[in-house]
């Protein structure tokens, strides 16, 4: 079997684990009956500020930004999922296996990427009409790949963070939620990135979501296609960059745990 086929098989099995993980924690009834309504309220909570400001433009800005960010927020749960492998005591076995552990870790949290993108699209479908955001068809169907792209680049970032929390499992919730809040604060979700001081705005360009959201805002405001495409490509580059960082750091982080004999320690 060639290497590509082996990698695909490892990813497929890891994804099955991911799916079982999700079903162990959530039922569809609980997800759609309790969690998704909570996400609708999250968008309402921010978008209604536009009403307070008597500014339809701000209402649209807040509704679009917050409908998207629920996707990356859910995707960021992949950070915690990485630690489940450590709890299961399987990390030493994965390190001993001939396949790269990164492949397994990239696949074993993929349910949050799928859930994040799907749920964000559902929130868009419900919230855009509620807040009178124009989304003419068929152009707005481009939302599907753009949301998927933004969640995928967030997933790459989450895998990198997952590698970090493998060394400090106790910090998993802190790291995941702080990362989500940083994105929610700086990536142009509630105020334009340019609101912040120049160094902060520059750092925000390296965050996942910033360019994907910009592309989505462009799409919904009928900006020229090349402008939207440029932002989408930049988002893809940012995501690829984080994947590279994850590739470069993951093995090193695992090697660190091997050298201290703490691979299978629960901490």
């Amino acid at each position, binding site marked *: 079997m060639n290497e590509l086929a082996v990698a695909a098989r490892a990813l497929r099995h890891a994804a099955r684990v991911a799916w079982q993980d999700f079903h162990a924690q*959530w039922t569809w009834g*609980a997800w759609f009956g*309790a*969690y998704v*309504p*909570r*996400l609708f*309220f*999250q968008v*309402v*909570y921010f978008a*209604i*500020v536009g*009403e*307070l*400001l008597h*500014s339809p433009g*701000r209402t649209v800005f*807040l509704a679009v930004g917050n409908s998207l960010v629920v996707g990356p927020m859910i995707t960021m749960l992949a950070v915690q999922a990485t630690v489940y492998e450590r709890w299961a005591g399987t990390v030493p076995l994965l390190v001993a296996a001939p396949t790269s552990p990164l492949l397994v870790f990239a696949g074993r949290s993929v349910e949050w990427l799928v859930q994040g993108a799907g749920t964000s699209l559902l929130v868009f479908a419900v919230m855009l009409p509620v807040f009178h955001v124009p989304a003419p068809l068929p152009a707005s169907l481009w939302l599907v790949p753009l949301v998927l792209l933004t969640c995928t680049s967030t997933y790459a970032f989450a895998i990198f963070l997952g590698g970090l929390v493998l060394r400090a499992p*106790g910090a998993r*919730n*802190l790291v995941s*939620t*702080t990362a989500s*809040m*940083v994105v*929610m*604060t700086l990536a142009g979700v*509630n*105020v*334009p990135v340019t*609101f*912040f001081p120049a160094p902060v705005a520059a750092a925000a360009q390296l965050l996942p979501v910033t360019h994907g959201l910009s592309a989505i805002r462009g799409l919904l405001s009928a900006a020229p296609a090349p402008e939207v495409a440029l932002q989408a490509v930049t988002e893809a580059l940012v995501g690829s960059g984080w994947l590279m960082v994850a590739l470069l750091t993951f093995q090193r982080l695992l090697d660190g745990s091997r050298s201290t004999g703490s691979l299978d320690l629960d901490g």
Partner: protein
Amino acid sequence: MTRPLRAAMRAQLLMSLRDPGDLFPLVLVPFYTVIFLAIMRSAGRSDLLGSAVLAPVLLNLWYMALVVAGDLVARDRFFQTIELLVATPTPYAVVGVGRVLATTLLSLVAFVEAWLVARFGFDYAIQVHHSVLFAVTLTLTAVATVGTAVVMAAVFVVGRTPRMLQNSLSYPIYVLGGVLTPVSLLPWWLQAPARLLYLSWAADLLRDCLQAAPPRDVGVRLLVIAGLGIASLAIGLLLTSRVIDRLRRRGALGLT
């Protein structure tokens, strides 16, 4: 009764100070403060900056109560202390009230965080025009939060997925509680349930305390907050004792 209450408060404070999970909501406060202040300032609405500082405090008050209420019985089961607690002459609900009260007091640290972010991040110092009323309202709000948290603790024990409830009860309550925007902005059919929440009355009155004009109907509004708080506390105490009795009868008290 006050000695066990004080002991429960002390125990919870010690546990929370050692468990980052309990204090975790406080990490979110600076982010929310920046977001709310940035929205108001970018819109040029300096008159709403006070509300933007207040909102993360109320949000945190609710969220910390939600977190501790969800973990209250679960933690006692995990540490296998629940059977010993139930066997003591003090009602378990009193221990619960003490522990939630400690967390609620701890959650007020959020006010310092929000103030610091506003002062040094946005060069804005929140001005409370009616400070005595503000302090009274905040105290009553904290008490009402304790009552509501005790109700939630009982519900969480019966529910099979407390974590899911914890996750799902945040933003709906922030919206219905008028934490950032007044309830009057909601559609009419959401305003009625919102008015059953102590938080909506408390948020409105606290915001009014930031305005120079004297707040109206102060007595009635304080009474409503206190009334809703006392009612929820009474319901919470009753529910907790019923739930604990049910667990005892089923021999499921110490099961995790």
